[in-house]
């Protein structure tokens, strides 16, 4: 990591001011005192109970940025980050109730999580559970990995994924399984930044063998990745990863590009696919979405470019060389945001949120002909509190939106 005193996520800035330090130290001592007097301790984590979707059974009340996935046995698995700990739990009744959370990091960490910097969870065919999350490590932010080979009863000690985790920040990991069940993790990496004027981060990735040896080999995919937008991933017919991300193009244009890994050690293929001409030096914090089925790529993204502004969907029938005319999503007066897309054969699903100043509405829209025509968008849920981004999930029978909010807790909402 380059030592640039003014950069936000370097140690020099995140170090507390004297006053803050004393205040925190005082807080810790008081906390210690409380523990000493009450006999309360970390052991609390051994007595976690099962509960409903509202996180009242969580030691620190759960968190907002929760990721969920279906396992091969139909169980819904979640990763739930709190301020200092990360947990995994599961539901056998489509999110109505959840198992007792299993603690991933036995040692306290400063967990770094946001809508874009999300935790990840994936369950392969054999039932192995993989999780990723970001926390402060040797650097201000590091992606950690842990796995369970015993159906989630226990997890391996979390390890940094990046081989340069002690030297450079790694964050905004995207964990995904290819159709053969191979786990991939892609992340933002700052190891190649020698000058902060140079645009963007690098994308690095590793595959996870699922064997006991957790020796990750990080490979570089691309440079000039926009610093604060998460990476979207899908897999093509050859089970090769296809990523969609916001890149910084010449002239400071923050539009989107596809990155495809190639077999036989060939260089990754890069294609610019959105041409909204968003020339800006800013952090949009608004990553895209991608899905693949029937030889088509489906993408959804946010832009405030000079050509178009808002949320859009398009598909490509020629491996991303050309895309359909962007279809605008949502009500432009209500800040349509944070899209996700899922492709099940010719059935394509989109979800996003809209905000009217008081409440957030969750919207879905469906196409039955590969994205050429769409049924009217439907609002299927709402919240007046803080909300997470929505994500489409499928248990191979039905399609759901996984949506978390401060007041309503976790919801798994059927789309059809």
């Amino acid at each position, binding site marked *: 990591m380059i030592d640039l*005193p*003014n*950069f*936000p*996520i370097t140690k020099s*800035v*995140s170090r*507390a*001011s*004297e*006053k*803050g330090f*004393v*205040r925190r*130290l*005082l807080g810790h*001592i*008081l906390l*210690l*005192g409380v523990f*000493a*007097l009450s006999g309360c301790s970390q052991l609390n984590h051994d007595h976690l109970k099962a509960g409903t979707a509202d996180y009242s059974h969580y030691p620190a009340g759960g968190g907002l940025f929760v990721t969920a996935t279906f396992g091969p046995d139909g169980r819904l698995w979640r990763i739930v980050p709190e301020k200092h700990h990360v947990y995994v739990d599961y539901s056998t009744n489509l999110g109505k109730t959840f198992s007792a959370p299993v603690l991933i990091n036995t040692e306290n960490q400063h967990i770094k999580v*946001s809508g874009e910097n999300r935790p990840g969870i994936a369950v392969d065919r054999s039932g192995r559970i993989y999780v990723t999350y970001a926390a402060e490590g040797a650097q201000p932010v590091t992606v950690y990995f842990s796995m369970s080979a015993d159906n989630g009863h226990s997890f391996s000690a979390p390890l940094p994924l990046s081989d340069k985790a002690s030297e450079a920040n790694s964050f905004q990991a995207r964990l995904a399984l290819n159709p053969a069940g191979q786990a991939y993790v892609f992340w933002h990496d700052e190891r190649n930044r020698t000058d*902060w*004027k140079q645009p963007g981060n690098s994308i690095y990735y590793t595959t996870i063998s699922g064997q006991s040896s957790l020796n990750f080999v990080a490979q570089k995919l691309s440079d000039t990745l926009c*610093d*604060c937008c998460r990476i979207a991933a899908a897999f093509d017919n050859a089970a090769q990863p296809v990523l969609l991300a916001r890149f910084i193009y010449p002239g400071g244009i923050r539009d989107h590009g596809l990155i495809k890994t190639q077999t036989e050690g060939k260089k990754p293929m890069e294609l610019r696919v959105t041409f909204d001409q968003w020339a*800006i*030096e*800013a*952090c*949009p*914090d*608004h990553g895209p979405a991608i899905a693949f089925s029937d030889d088509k790529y489906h993408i959804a993204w*946010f832009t*405030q470019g000079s050509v178009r502004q808002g949320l859009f969907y398009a598909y490509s029938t020629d491996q991303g060389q050309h895309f359909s005319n962007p279809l605008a999503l949502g009500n432009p007066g209500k*800040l349509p*945001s944070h899209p996700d897309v899922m492709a099940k054969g010719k059935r394509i699903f989109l979800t996003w949120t809209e*905000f009217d*100043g*008081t409440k*957030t509405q969750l919207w879905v829209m469906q196409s039955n002909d590969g994205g050429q025509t769409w049924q009217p968008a439907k609002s299927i849920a709402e919240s007046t*509190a*803080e*909300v997470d981004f929505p994500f489409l999930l499928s248990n191979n029978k039905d399609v759901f939106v996984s949506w978390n909010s*401060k007041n309503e807790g976790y919801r798994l909402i059927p789309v059809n």
Partner: protein
Amino acid sequence: MPLKKLASGLLFLLLAFLNTPVQAEPSAFTSGSYQQILASNANQPFMLVIWSVNCSSCLKDMALLSSIHHSRPEIKMIMLAADELSAADQVQQILEKNQLSEIESWVYAEENTQKLQFSIDPKWYGELPRTYFFDKAHQRTGVSGVLSKEDYDAMFAKILK
């Protein structure tokens, strides 16, 4: 831990805490704060800079903001950090590093930051930095992204007219 020792330790730290010199800290920005800022700047032009400690683009902008603050003292500058109140120390530290600590500064202090964002501008998606230039009548122009010196000069000419 022996209670007596713990108690004396706590007392020592409490005294140390109380003796620490008080720094200017950002004010808590809540749902009525935007209107409050407008009211307390009635009939005068000003700029409101919204930024975050986690926004790398914003930090690239700080040096120029600092030089503008010192070279154009007639332009009232207000900083608003779109961070949690718990990041107030970090906010203050960055402002101090850039010789901006003496100017009016705020930090988001409500959980539902989307509501705060909407209270400022219902058309803004939250991208940072975001700068608003207000003329005397409080006609405003909102611009996203890092601005050049020329951009600032052009906006100042507009609001000082």
